[in-house]
Structure formats: structure tokens, C-alpha cells
């Protein structure tokens, strides 16, 4: 029991009390449930890997996005984390493929550009497989630094680079937008 609690405590956001509660829940659950939880944990490590083209987490390599016959493989959207892909897929309007950096430039954590997974993106560009790169990193100092760094690297190869717009959330009121958001919204305005 102590071993289980100690292992659960290593999970993000799980303190001693939560770990204890989860451990007791697992203890009380059926053999089947406990077994399939353990198996799921094993499978994640045994079967999932990173797509060799886009770094997305996948059980087949290349991933389903990179091998889809209906997607535009020459349009690449760059995101920080694999979970960001779901947010973009929700729109059902993006028909290109992805590239996952697995992080962003973060000086306070000692993370520089050399720590990001960029090489397979530049390889795709060097092989002339890309027309446009859309940079969809977060609108934070770290995300912006990452975007600027990437665009400088990619533009050298003559590929079109775009950045997702920042601005006022849909359904909100511009009266409550903070100064930076408003400024970015003005900068990113479009002609009607």
C-alpha cells in the first residue's frame, strides 16, 4: 500500500492525501478494474511512441494525421504540446498536418531552442515538402520567443510562415479586454 501511495504521489497535482484516497479506491475496486488500470499504464509505455514525422504521440508510426490521404501535408501547424492538437482539431476547419515541439523556450527553466524538437520539421522543409508553417504556440512570453525563433529559422528556407491571431475572445466584451490583448487585437485586424 505504501508503495502504491508513493508512486501515485509522483503524479502531477497529486499530494499525500489525494494519493491515499486513490490508493484506497484502487484497493476497493474489482480485480478487473485494477488489472485494466495496470495494463493501460503498461500499454502507454509499451505501445505509444512519438511520430517520426511530427512528434505527435501515436501507436502507429507515422501517425494517422501524417498518413491521412485527405490532409494537406504541405501545410504544417506547429504546437507546443500533443494536447494542443485536439484544440485545433475541434475547429474541424484545419486540414493540414502538425508538428509538436514538446515544450517552448523557457529561460527560467534553462530551456533554450536547442532543447526543442525542431530537427524533423527543418528536415521536412529542407526536402521541400512544406508550403506554409502556421505557428500556434501559446500567446505567452515563452510561446512568442519560440515563435520568433522558429520563424527566423524557417524563413531562411523561403517557406511562408504565419502566426495564429491573438485577440478578443469570441462572445466577450471589449470593455473587459486587458491592454495587451486589445493591442494584439488591433495589430491583428483584418480588412472587411
Amino acid at each position, binding site marked *: 500500500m505504501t508503495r502504491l501511495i508513493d508512486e501515485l504521489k509522483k503524479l502531477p*497535482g497529486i499530494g499525500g492525501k489525494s494519493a491515499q484516497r486513490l490508493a484506497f479506491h484502487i484497493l476497493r475496486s474489482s480485480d478487473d478494474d485494477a488489472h485494466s488500470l495496470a495494463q493501460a499504464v503498461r500499454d502507454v509505455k509499451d505501445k505509444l511512441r512519438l511520430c517520426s514525422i511530427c512528434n505527435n504521440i501515436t501507436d502507429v508510426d507515422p501517425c494517422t494525421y501524417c498518413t491521412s490521404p485527405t490532409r494537406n501535408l504541405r501545410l504544417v501547424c506547429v504546437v507546443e504540446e500533443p494536447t494542443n492538437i485536439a484544440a485545433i482539431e475541434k475547429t474541424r476547419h484545419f486540414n493540414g498536418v502538425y508538428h509538436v515541439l514538446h515544450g517552448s523556450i523557457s529561460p527560467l527553466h534553462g530551456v533554450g531552442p536547442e532543447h526543442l524538437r525542431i530537427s524533423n520539421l527543418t528536415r521536412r522543409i529542407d526536402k521541400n515538402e512544406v508550403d506554409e508553417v502556421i505557428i500556434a504556440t501559446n500567446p505567452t*512570453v515563452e510561446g512568442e*520567443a519560440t515563435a520568433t525563433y522558429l520563424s527566423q529559422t524557417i524563413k531562411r528556407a523561403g517557406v511562408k510562415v504565419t502566426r495564429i491571431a491573438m485577440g478578443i475572445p469570441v462572445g466577450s466584451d471589449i470593455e473587459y479586454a486587458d491592454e*495587451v490583448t486589445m493591442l494584439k487585437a488591433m495589430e491583428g485586424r483584418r480588412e472587411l
Partner: protein
Amino acid sequence: MAIKQSEAIVLRSYPLREADLLVTLLTRTDGKVRGVARAAKKSKKRFGGALEPLTYVRAYWDDREGHELARLDSCEVLESPLADEVDYPRAVALGYVAEVLDQVLPDREPNDAMFRLALAVLANLRAGAIWMPLTYFDLWIVRLMGLLPELSECIECGEGLNGSRAWFHPLADGLMCQQHKRLASNEMQAESRRLAAEMFRAPIEKFGGTAWRKQQGIDLRKFLAQRIERQLEKKLVTASMLDRLD
């Protein structure tokens, strides 16, 4: 509970539990204050971009009795680093300013000179122009920490260094003359010592606009960063990242 408010500079924010952020603020009235911004990670509404490092804000918080951490109520952005271009060197420079301030300042000790220094440096830290404001920041912060030795004399023998060569070393607290320099010392150019003297006489704007190369004042910044790291008894994460920039 009475809500306090002050101008402040956000130094750091870390995720805490599921949706909260642990935020370190340099406030004008109360010095360094650490507090929790509830639900800031999920609901971006109340804080927006205000908790990004080095954002100049008006912060509202309450100090709960018996709690070390304040409860951060809201922040209004006064000036955001995101309003200007953020390239990689500027991000590292901003990180350095945040790390140094966070490390050297004690909790809850107001220090108006430090606050004004931070504001002045942030206002001048632009993409493509980081080395001048960083030099100014290093000089003044080391002086405000009380760690700046007399740069015109040898700390070993007291002999004047003006007009002669000077050296520094991570374990020596000041400059040394030719005779007393230690093994593996670095030389500090007379030009850099002159620059230091000028920077103590004039506001930062006087040095602005000039596109500094990294090489300018590099020995002075190295000497000053060594003073800070010696005081902290540890290396600064962002200092080595600055070293690696071109």
C-alpha cells in the same frame, strides 16, 4: 479582509495544484509578495496576460492572517513585455532580470530604488537591444545590494587603478592590480570601468538607442554577475543562457 493594492512587477508564476498559480510579485509598497491566484490556469478571465513574467501591473491582494501566501485577487496590466517583439535573446534577458530580482530580494521588504530600477530596465529591454539595459541593471542591482566595491582601486593593496590594467576573479570581491591579480583572473578593460562610472551618473535613457554589441561591457557584466552569484552562493540559470547568446 482589507484588500491591498500596489503597483507591482510579476517575477514568476508556477502552476500549483490543478488550476491555481503561485505568483511572485515585486510590489512597490510591500516588497516581494508571494501569493496564490486561484483558478488562474483555467479561467484566464480575471488575470488574462497579467501574470506573465515581467508584466508591470496594478495588483490587488489580501494577506490572510496565519498564511504565508497572500490571496491574489486581480491584476490590471499597466505594461506588458508582450506589447513589444519577443525574440529569443529578449526572452532570456527578461528571464535574467526576473531570476535575479526573485533571488536577491527578501520577502516583504519594500525597496523603492529596486522597484524603479526594474521599471527603468524593463522599459529599455527591447528586441535587438538587450546588452545596454542588462549592463545597467547589473551595475545598479549590485550597488543597491551593497556589493559594489570601489572600482578605481585594488582591493588587496588599495593602489589606484585609473590609468592602469585591472583584473577580477570569482572569489575576489573587487578589482586587483597587476601585482595582486589571482591565478585565472579576467581582465576588466579601462573602457568598461569608465562605462560603469558613466552609468552611475546618468539615467538609463541616456544610453538607450545605441545598438550595443554583446562584446560591449561584457567583462563588466561578468564581474557583476560573479558578485551576485557569490552572494547567492549559487549559479543563475539564466546567466549561462545569456553567455551562450551570440
